[in-house]
């Protein structure tokens, strides 16, 4: 009953979304305000409808309705309720419904705003979001239906939505359960964060298309969607960081980022998004680069759809998987169709998108931002190419290949270095005009100090040339950025006669995006310290120890105590946990407990024993043990220097974005707000 209800409501919301597309287009071309209003209401209606449909699915998930194949795949009786709820996005069918739900929510939020002078955008914003919604709901209804049930047909169990003739519902005893790797708290919030990022990128795209279609190609659409782009970027970044932390905690290979196609799928829209956040400033300040910003928004949207499809479907594993998956070709068709249509629109409006001013010098801030865009696009090209090359290779030569971390690391490392250098230079350059001389004068102190830092590191810490280049750039960026804070606050202090900290906080409060951006630059450098540490200085060893034996790695001495195994039947898992005593220079530091969980389903999971300090992480994995005697075990041990800075940087990074995206009331709005509350108060006083 509930399954049919959920499916029926999904079908209704699909039809309503189709209607909203048609009404919006028809209303806009016929200039019929009532039709557009009708499209808007239809759009608004999709949200409660999909909420209902999703509630039906949640009801099925929470109440162990294993006759529903999706519920059977992602939950089991033993799972706690909160995991059953989050299993909603634990499989493809559910996550497509989740995507649709988020999109309906965001699109509704947008259509509810006051449109006033932007009313001509409205029908087209509705159209773009509804088309996207139609596509995702169509996937849910026709191809990846989360409400499909098992039926007993002539002794065979088959999944169908509706009862075949003479069939009875088949209910399995228990479900498969969510993949144990996905039960980590990081993994519970990581997908929704990525999806929030993905879905909020649809909104700027919808406005960009509206601007192109209506011919209002000034930067109004950018101002309207500025906050959306920032929030989209925040969620994407948060999702990526959580994913990295999850990999470090759960996947058991001593790293946080493996250049896996699924990771890259989430990273690519982040790259275009980051490029957009920079180049959009050029359009706002100087009226340049309108074509380019359009292209970036379009690319972000295309990559978001591509990424959604990549993360869940696993079709990139081979050409056959792609061709046989019902949704692979459909996704590709949708991505290509929207891409072609959008680019065609940009070309159609090409003359309107001409820059309003000229560029002055090769070293002006806008020119440096362009260089930054070139570098981000280069990383994108490498990532995209690396992800699709295995398919191309298989298609043309029949030979499967792997494109692994060495390819990406070698190709992107110099580009990241270039980006860091730009981070050190661009904040000092002026809009419109800069010369080598002005830049040099602003920079030389920081550069000299960075050089001193590098020399000290050379003398005391490392002789590795790549690491030294990295540390020089990090020091340069940090110094330049701090100098920017210092100079801004000092200048304000002098003109406003405030104390330094008041000046600093007011300065930052008044220029949230700029100083938020600088905080993000600083956090990026902290992350870079961690990345350099683990990439260049990571030390690993592996050894088999009998009880009481020890192994030495770097300054650490590890003494193996014992290993114990036990079953946890309700959780359907066998735990094996080792105890290791850690000493440094004869001093006892504590115990570590690397663990291996073997789920009865056959899925293994390695939980590292990790001792984390600002200097390094001691990261121990239990690889193997003697099942009978339990007195000898094999460990893989990593010392990951400086890696904690990666997580500290990530935290600061998120704070920086939140700072930049925090809604500050602009003065006009604030006055309006005050007068409204005043009127409200008077009205209530009069009552």
């Amino acid at each position, binding site marked *: 009953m509930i399954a049919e209800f959920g499916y029926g409501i999904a079908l209704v919301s699909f039809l309503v979304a189709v209607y909203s597309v048609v009404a919006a287009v028809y209303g806009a071309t016929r200039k019929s305000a009532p039709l557009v209003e009708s499209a808007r209401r239809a759009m608004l209606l999709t949200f409660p409808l999909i909420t209902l449909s999703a509630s039906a699915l949640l009801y099925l998930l929470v109440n162990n309705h294993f006759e529903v194949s999706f519920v059977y795949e992602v939950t089991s009786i033993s799972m706690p309720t909160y995991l059953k709820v989050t299993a909603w996005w634990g499989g493809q069918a559910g996550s497509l419904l989740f995507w649709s739900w988020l999109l309906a929510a965001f699109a509704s939020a947008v259509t509810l705003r006051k449109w006033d002078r932007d009313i001509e955008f409205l029908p087209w914003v509705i159209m773009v979001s509804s088309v996207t919604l139609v596509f995702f709901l169509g996937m849910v209804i026709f191809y990846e239906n989360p409400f499909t049930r098992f039926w007993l047909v002539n002794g065979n169990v088959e999944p169908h939505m509706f009862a075949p003739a003479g069939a009875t519902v088949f209910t399995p005893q228990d479900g498969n359960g969510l993949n144990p790797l996905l039960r980590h708290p990081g993994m519970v919030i990581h997908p929704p964060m990525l999806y929030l990022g993905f879905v909020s990128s649809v909104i700027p795209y919808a406005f960009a298309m509206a601007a192109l279609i209506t011919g209002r190609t000034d930067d109004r659409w950018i101002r309207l969607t500025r906050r959306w782009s920032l929030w989209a970027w925040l969620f994407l970044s948060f999702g990526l960081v959580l994913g990295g932390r999850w990999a470090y905690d759960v996947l058991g*290979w001593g790293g946080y980022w493996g250049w896996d196609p699924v990771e890259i799928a989430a990273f690519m829209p982040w790259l275009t998004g980051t490029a957009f956040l920079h180049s959009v400033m050029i359009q706002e300040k100087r009226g340049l680069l309108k074509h380019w910003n359009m292209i970036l928004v379009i690319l972000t949207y295309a990559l978001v759809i591509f990424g959604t499809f990549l993360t869940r479907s696993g079709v990139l594993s081979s050409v056959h998987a792609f061709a046989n998956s019902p949704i692979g070709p459909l996704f590709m068709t949708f991505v290509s169709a929207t891409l072609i249509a959008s680019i065609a629109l940009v070309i159609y409006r090409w003359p309107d998108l001409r820059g309003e001013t*000229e560029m002055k010098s090769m070293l002006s801030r806008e020119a440096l931002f*362009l260089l930054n865009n070139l570098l981000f696009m280069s990383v994108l090209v490498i990532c995209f190419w690396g992800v699709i090359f295995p398919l*191309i290779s298989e298609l043309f030569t029949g*030979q499967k*290949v792997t494109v692994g971390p060495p390819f990406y690391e070698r190709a992107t490392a110099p580009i990241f270095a270039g980006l860091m250098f730009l981070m050190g230079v661009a904040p000092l350059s002026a809009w419109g005009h800069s010369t080598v001389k002005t830049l040099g004068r602003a920079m030389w102190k920081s550069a000299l100090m960075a050089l001193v830092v590098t020399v000290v590191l050379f003398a005391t810490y490392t002789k590795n040339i790549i690491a030294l280049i990295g540390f020089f750039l990090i020091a340069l960026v940090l110094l330049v950025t701090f100098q920017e804070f210092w100079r801004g606050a000092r200048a304000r202090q002098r*003109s406003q006669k405030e104390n330094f900290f008041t000046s600093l906080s007011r300065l930052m409060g008044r220029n949230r995006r700029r100083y938020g951006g600088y905080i993000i630059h600083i956090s990026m450098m902290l992350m870079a310290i961690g990345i350099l540490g683990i990439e260049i200085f990571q030390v690993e060893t592996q*050894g088999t120890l009998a009880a009481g034996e020890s192994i030495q790695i770097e300054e650490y001495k590890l003494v193996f105590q014992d290993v114990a195994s036990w079953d946890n039947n309700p959780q359907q898992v066998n735990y094996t946990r080792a105890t290791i005593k850690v000493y440094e220079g004869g001093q006892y530091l504590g115990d570590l407990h690397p663990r291996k969980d073997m789920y009865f389903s056959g899925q293994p999971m390695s939980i590292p024993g990790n001792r984390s300090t600002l200097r390094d992480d001691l990261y121990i994995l239990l690889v193997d043990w003697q099942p009978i005697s339990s007195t000898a075990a094999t460990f893989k041990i990593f010392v990951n220097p400086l890696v904690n800075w990666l997580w500290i940087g990530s935290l600061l990074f998120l704070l920086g974005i939140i700072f930049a995206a925090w809604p500050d009331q602009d003065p006009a709005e604030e006055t309006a707000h005050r007068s409204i509350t005043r009127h409200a108060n008077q009205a209530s006083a009069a009552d």
Partner: protein
Amino acid sequence: MKKIFYAFVFIFILSALFTGAAFAQGDLPTDDEVNAVAHQLYCPVCQNTPLDVCPTDACRDWREQIREMLAEGKTEDEILQYFVDQFGDRVLSAPPVSTKFNWIIYIIPPLIILAGAIILFRSLKEWTTPKAAEAAAVEVGSGSSSPSDDYVARFEEELKKQK
């Protein structure tokens, strides 16, 4: 003649010593030596997992195979080649340049990036070529002032905007 005989004996003993030493070293290679090779290989069954960290039984067997091959005195390249022969190029961490087709992966990205750079610099040049009248009309800030003046001016301009 005797000299030659002694020389032979000497060489014989020496080589015997060396062979003995080699056998003595022929203990099983350490895990670290095995992992150093395994790290360059990708598990042929699990996607995108280097062989040295892959937890599956199949991968454990493959690691043991590497250990045996190392013990037999095979070089790293020979072992890698053995796995490529067995399972194809996909076990390597990046496509080998041994086939002509694979060159594409290394050539295309630099070409695209280069093209992007050329387009960028051409447009920049076009934009920065002074068009006297226009340039004068939209001139902002002064090029001759010192950087700190420029900074303060910029700053004050922004302050004004805020008010």
